[in-house]
């Protein structure tokens, strides 16, 4: 009779805390929670705007609450973290071959930052005009 009895280990619930690489990954994924919150607050503002000036001003005043400022600072930090880590991963999804050589990663990453700057300036112009 076979003595085989393969043992299956359980995945501990805190698996993502046991290795810095996994923790960073979870922060990247977790950033979406705060970015969702940020978008909801923004959408709420648009909704308040549709209700007239008083409603919109009340929404603006609420944004000055320290709690709101802290929330936005966290969202900003996480959004930047997500952007930086995501851009550094971008070359993995892009295989561009030019004259028989694969375009080096640093060009793809630089391209992403370039586009990021251009789009940001464009948005700033729209907002301030």
């Amino acid at each position: 009779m076979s003595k085989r009895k393969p043992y299956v280990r359980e995945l501990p619930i805190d698996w993502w805390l046991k290795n810095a690489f996994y923790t960073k990954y979870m922060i990247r994924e977790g950033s979406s929670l705060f970015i969702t919150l940020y978008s909801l607050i923004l959408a709420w503002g648009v909704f308040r705007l549709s209700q007239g000036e008083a409603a919109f001003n009340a929404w603006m005043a609420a944004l000055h609450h320290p709690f709101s400022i802290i929330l936005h600072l966290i969202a900003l930090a996480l959004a930047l973290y997500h952007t930086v880590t995501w851009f550094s991963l971008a070359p993995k999804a892009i295989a561009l071959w030019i004259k028989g050589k694969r375009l080096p990663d640093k060009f793809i990453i630089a391209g992403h930052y370039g586009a990021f700057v251009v789009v940001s300036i464009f948005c700033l112009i729209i907002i301030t005009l």
Partner: protein
Amino acid sequence: MNASTITIDILRYRPEMDEKPFTQSYEVPYSADLSVLESLQYIKDHLDSTVSFRWSCRMAICGSCGMMVNGVPKLGCKVFLRDYYPKKVTLAPLANFPIERDLVVVMDDFIDKLESVKPYLIPEKEKDLATGPHQQTPLQMEKFKQFSMCINCGLCYAACPQYALDKKFTGPAALALLARYNRDSRDNGEAERMKIVNQEEGVWGCTFVGYCSVVCPKDVDPAAAIQLLKVDSSKDYLIGMFKPD
């Protein structure tokens, strides 16, 4: 010379007598050029002949000696005691695989996955042997070569939390192998393989943790293979919307 030693903890499991794995410590004479695999061989030869582990080539090419070294998937023959000394070294069987005995894991699921991706050339039409080999330029080979360097060690599966959470996920090495054939100019099997790629258990089971590519001892970069396949899969989907077959 004052002989110093290093402590090696091994997660042991003997199916015929143990209910669950337990840790056993060994003291091994330290030398800077001793690999973890050699230290296991020392233990087996001099301290405890019952310890089980797999190995063959001792030069990072057979892919047999994968294990968790201080929690990180490594090839035992490619990692050295000097990387840890004077701290102790903790060895465990590869994560995410069932333990067969001590450091030996059951790899059947991994092998099945490698087989499932049709890892062979599917030419457009059978060629007569007399017409000679399929020709390929160095550039055409370059496009898939990296993904063909896999030694089937399974380290990437031990590194993949998505595989840990859902064993149905095709996983890094098998998808890299799939990409290797899809990108081969002599192959015409892409349409067949895209069915595997497009599934939830295919590339979309990957959330781009990226640790597989960090632990891979052969720089296969399976994470890149999967992301490239995601691009292919998206294209496939868009084309399918306009041109259903």
